[in-house]
């Protein structure tokens, strides 16, 4: 018998545990030229804002040892254009659509959440952790009170499950996870990028036009695993775990640490089909180890 890779996450059924991470996959159009998007458990959209945003000036990327920094700054077409043009495209596939939103106030987050859940997305991912914008974003994600407020307002207006995306740029991520859970979040996702910097020694200037950016890719996996594991101890709501997942084995580690779903971001830049090989790697591990369902793996790390 082959493993059942379906996952019921915050009441939503995912065909498999692999979800494309926000901002690394656009709205799926480009990668749909590489494979059928129905092969993915779900897709988190690029971070959406109420009005369209142009984002930060380039360069917006710097390579780092086994990772990268980005400073995109939430370039996106805005919620209405997403609903009109991108969502119908995404809906053509048998995959769950998770709308990632970023606002400048709790009220703005809530308005977007209402509009998007009415438009028919499967879940809302509340991004309180973008390190690349001046207003909003991380400013909310580093304060438990602000996380609580945004979660409360979004939860009141959204008609679909709400997931709060947490920042690793905090002293204690479990405090943020608890704040989200206490205000009714249905799930949390983590980690967003770690704030970082690179400097060109020839020009003595930062490589990124924005000076700093968010670190992602294989380099951050151990940090992500530790935070997933800590969060698993702290809250009962399920976790979408991400950060540096590059292989099926990495994904299994994230599941063992406590994730119910796994996100794949930067790995797709190295290999466009990365999410599918990660999905296949999870299934192979499950078959080899006679594990019948993904939920058996979640949080089943055996501590020393």
């Amino acid at each position, binding site marked *: 018998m082959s493993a059942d890779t379906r996952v019921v996450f915050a009441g939503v059924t995912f065909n498999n545990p692999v979800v494309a991470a926000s*901002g*690394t996959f656009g709205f799926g159009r*480009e990668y749909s030229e590489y494979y059928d998007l129905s092969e993915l458990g779900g897709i988190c959209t690029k971070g959406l804002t109420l009005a369209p945003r142009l984002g930060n000036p380039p360069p917006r990327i710097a390579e780092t040892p086994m990772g990268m920094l980005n400073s995109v700054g939430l370039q996106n077409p805005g919620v209405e254009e997403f609903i009109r043009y991108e969502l119908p495209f995404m809906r053509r596939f048998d995959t769950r659509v998770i709308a990632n939103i970023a606002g400048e106030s709790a009220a703005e987050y809530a308005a977007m959440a209402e509009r998007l859940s009415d438009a028919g997305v499967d879940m809302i991912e509340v991004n309180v952790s973008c390190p690349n914008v001046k207003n909003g974003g991380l400013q909310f994600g580093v304060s438990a009170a602000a996380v609580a407020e945004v979660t409360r307002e979004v939860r009141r207006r959204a008609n679909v499950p709400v997931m709060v995306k947490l920042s690793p740029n905090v002293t204690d991520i479990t405090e943020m996870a608890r704040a989200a859970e206490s205000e009714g979040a249905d799930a949390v996702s983590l980690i967003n990028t770690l704030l970082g910097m690179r400097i060109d020694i020839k020009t003595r200037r930062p490589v990124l036009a924005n000076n700093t950016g968010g670190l992602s890719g294989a380099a951050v996996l151990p940090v992500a695993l530790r935070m997933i594991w800590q969060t698993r101890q702290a809250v009962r709501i399920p976790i979408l775990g991400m950060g540096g997942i590059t292989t099926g084995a990495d994904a299994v580690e994230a599941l063992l640490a406590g994730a119910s779903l796994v996100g794949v971001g930067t790995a797709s830049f190295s290999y466009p089909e990365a999410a599918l090989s990660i999905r296949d790697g999870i299934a192979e591990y499950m078959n080899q180890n006679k594990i019948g369902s993904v939920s058996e793996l979640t949080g089943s790390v055996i501590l020393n």
Partner: protein
Amino acid sequence: MRSIFTVTDIRPLASGVFAITFDAPELARAATPGQFVHIKCGHSRPLRRPFGICDVRGDMLTVAFEVRGDGTRWLAVSEPGRRVDINGPLGHGFSNPDGDILLVGGGLGAAPLLFAARRARGRVSAILGFRSDANAILREEFDSVCEDVFVATEDGSSGLRGTVVPPLEELMKTKRFSAVLACGPRPMLRAVADISESAGVKCEISLEERMGCGVGACLVCVCETQSDDVTKMSRVCRDGPVFDSREVVR
């Protein structure tokens, strides 16, 4: 599409500059001038490196590159038989205009123009600018496909002394081109666009920006463009690398 292709040849074009050829029938068939390939330069570098397609002959696809850092150093030590992971062809290339065209290349920017010259429908003239004679690449190749080729070097060690601008201004006065296609450093592109536009000739420029995904999904590679008074951050990897010069905000 992404696949593994075998290196068939690598040869130096100048000091630190190489032409590397892959047996890549699928890429060769699909490629059009101005497009690029995205090459995985070893396991330790997560980001692929973008290179313009320099030439396509039969099943063979050639890229000309300069050693600039770690990734290009990895590529430079290739030998025939090495298997390399390539994603491509990617991006929006040059249009293939009717009539006579003028190519203007600066440095390594000459490389993708050779492929454009090969596929051109009308007669082709080229102006190629280099630092000095030692850096002048692909001259015989251009000579064999172009009606006339003008070389300019900054130190005057080969061809005209100076930049591509004087020969460009001269040629625009004496000949009528349906389009100017340019690739090279930003200041050169600005000058070529200004001169072409004021002569009323359509100008297409190929831009460079640091890339992540290379396919249009991550929005890290943008440049500011404007059309119908709408400002956009366009993706160099997908909306470009070739843009109509009038759209690119300078």
